[in-house]
Every structure is written in C-alpha cells, then in structure tokens.
C-alpha cells in the first residue's frame, strides 16, 4: 500500500475510512491522466479505490486493474492449460475451472481478457478451439456479448475445427439469436454443413420456428 497514489498524497493518514477532499481531487486528476494511475494500480487495494467514493473512476479502475492482473498473471497459465490438457466434450478441464473462477471475481474484465487472448492468438487454432470450448459452456447472457462475437468470428475462420467450435458454441447457447446466425452459415465441408443443418433443425424445433418461404427456396 505504501506506494499507492492514494497514500502518496497524504502520508499522515493512518486509516482509509474517510478519504479527504484532497485525496478525491487527487484521484480525479490522476484518473484523468489514467496512464499514470494505471501504472500504479497493482499497488492499490480494492478497499483503497472504493473508499475514494468516485463511482465512475472506481469502476473503471477496478476493471482495469483486474484486466491487467489477468493479462499479466493468468494468460500464460491459460495458454499452458489449453496447449497441454486433454479435452473431452462433456467434461470439465482445468482451463474451464480457471476461467469460471475468474468470471466469478469479475466477469466484465474476464470477458475482455478472453477476448484479447482470442484476438492475439487468432492464428493459433489450438488456442482458439480451447477458448471457444470454454465459452460455449458459459451461460449465453453471462458471456454476452464477447462470447458471441468470438463465436461469430470462428464461423468465418479458415480452419474447419475452429468453425465447428463456433457452431457448437451457438448450439450450446441455444438461443433464438443462435438460430438466426447459423441460418446464414454455409461451408464446403460436408460433415460440418450436415451438423450445422442438424443444429438449425433442433433450434427451430426448440424455439417453435416454422420454415419460411425463403427456406423452402434454398
């Protein structure tokens, strides 16, 4: 704590229960120069930040702090697990448990973190498949919208397995929106197209969607 911006401005304070106007002003100024604040975020506890009473910056700082922590401390662990773990459909992996534990701590930052790893490793199919399998197991609204964005990106990936994982994600979420998205997907890979068609039929039945004229014409 001793190096936090909060404490550096008032070394006479011994408790953090009632932040002074001076502290809050300092924090606002520092937050405006966010780069300065963010470089010191690891030195701030959540209590320090919360006690400033600055709602907007408090939330941004908490999320930024969490995202920074995830990137620096857990990206390598996630990548290692995705590369080394055996995967079976239906069964949890350590990577699932890691992501779920981080989602419980801060889902906003965790979704942003997963999204950033996904973008960074977009040419690495092993990592993409791993992330897609994990997000497919999370509730539609919990992972929304980053999860859906990642799955949509997967549908246009050149790798068939990545594409399949995108389809699986939408199948798993099972929403009406999944049906709308999958309806427009076409692939030259026969087995995958058959799978997509089957998922579409299932989703139509689940949501009681009847075939429209355009479907008959296809």
């Amino acid at each position, binding site marked *: 704590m001793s190096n936090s911006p909060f404490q550096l401005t008032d070394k006479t304070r011994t408790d953090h229960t009632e932040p002074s106007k001076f502290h809050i002003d300092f924090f606002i100024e520092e937050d405006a120069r966010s780069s300065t604040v963010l470089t010191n975020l690891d030195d701030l506890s959540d209590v320090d930040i919360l006690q400033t009473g600055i709602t907007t910056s408090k939330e941004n700082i908490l999320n930024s702090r969490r995202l920074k922590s995830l990137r620096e401390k857990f990206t390598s662990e996630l990548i290692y697990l995705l590369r080394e773990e055996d*995967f079976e459909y*239906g*069964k949890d992996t350590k990577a699932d448990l890691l992501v779920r534990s981080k989602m419980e701590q801060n889902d906003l930052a965790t979704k942003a973190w997963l999204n950033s790893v996904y973008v960074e490793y977009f040419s690495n199919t092993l990592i993409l498949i791993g992330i897609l399998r994990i997000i497919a197991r999370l509730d539609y609204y919990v992972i929304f919208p980053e999860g859906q964005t990642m799955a949509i990106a997967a549908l246009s990936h050149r790798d068939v397995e990545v594409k399949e994982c995108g389809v699986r994600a939408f199948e798993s979420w099972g929403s009406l929106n999944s049906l709308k998205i999958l309806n427009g997907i076409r692939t030259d890979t026969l*087995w995958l197209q058959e799978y997509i068609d089957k998922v579409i039929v*299932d989703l139509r*039945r689940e949501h009681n969607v009847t075939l429209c004229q355009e479907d008959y014409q296809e």
Partner: protein
Amino acid sequence: MSLFVRKIIKSKWYQTDIENGDDVSADAITNCMKTKQNTLSVWEIESPDELDNAVLAIVSQHQHLETIDVVKLDSVSLVENEIVWVESRGLTPIDDLVDTHFDLSELTYPKLGIIVTPKTKSIWYPHKENDDVMSIAFELDESA
C-alpha cells in the same frame, strides 16, 4: 454380433479424407484412442438399435450436456484381427449399464492401427440420443 461404442471427436477424424482412403490423422489417434494400461474403454451394445444406451452410459459421466460423436466397432472384425476384450465395471450411475462396459485389452501399436483404420467401407450417419445430445456413429464394415 455385438458392437462396441467409444466416444471420439469427429473433427479429428475428418482432418484427412479417410472415406477416400487417406491415412487417419495422428490427432485422431492421440485424442480419441488414448489407451491406459494398453486398454481402450468401450461400451457394448447388442445391435445398432441400442446405441442410445451406450451414449447414455457415456454422457452420464459428463459435467456438461454437449454434442458428442461415437464410433461403433464391430466385434466380429475385432475377433478376426485377434483383438480381445475383458469385462470392466463401467463408471456410470445407471445400474443397468454398469456391466456393459469392457476394455479392449493387450493392445499394441499394430492392433491399435487395425482398430482405427476402416479397411473397406465406412459409414457415417447421424443419430439422435435425445433432444439435446446428438451422436454420430462410425461403423466398421463386417468384412473389414
């Protein structure tokens, strides 16, 4: 003639064009045919009509209800290729299916090769286990 059912990841098998004679990919073998103590876990059914039972036994061990793919192995073909199996209590909460689990045993590199290679004809067809789980079955031709 009984059949043995095992869970696989279908996309790994379609990394190559096995239906037109391509070699099976290494991913398919290492991901889907991972042995323990030189055995391979399988669930027995008496006919294709009972596939639901095997799929149920498999998914009953899962934490997530997800689409799975399974391969059906013809016991006659296994016997012809000197592949043996032993009874092994199945890990499933469904009592009626516990005794339908077996281990293909004494497996070696060539024997594993026999199991994973469809020698004559391969047939893929979709199968609905229930509303939520779909399995795809791969059946070795009897003359394989």
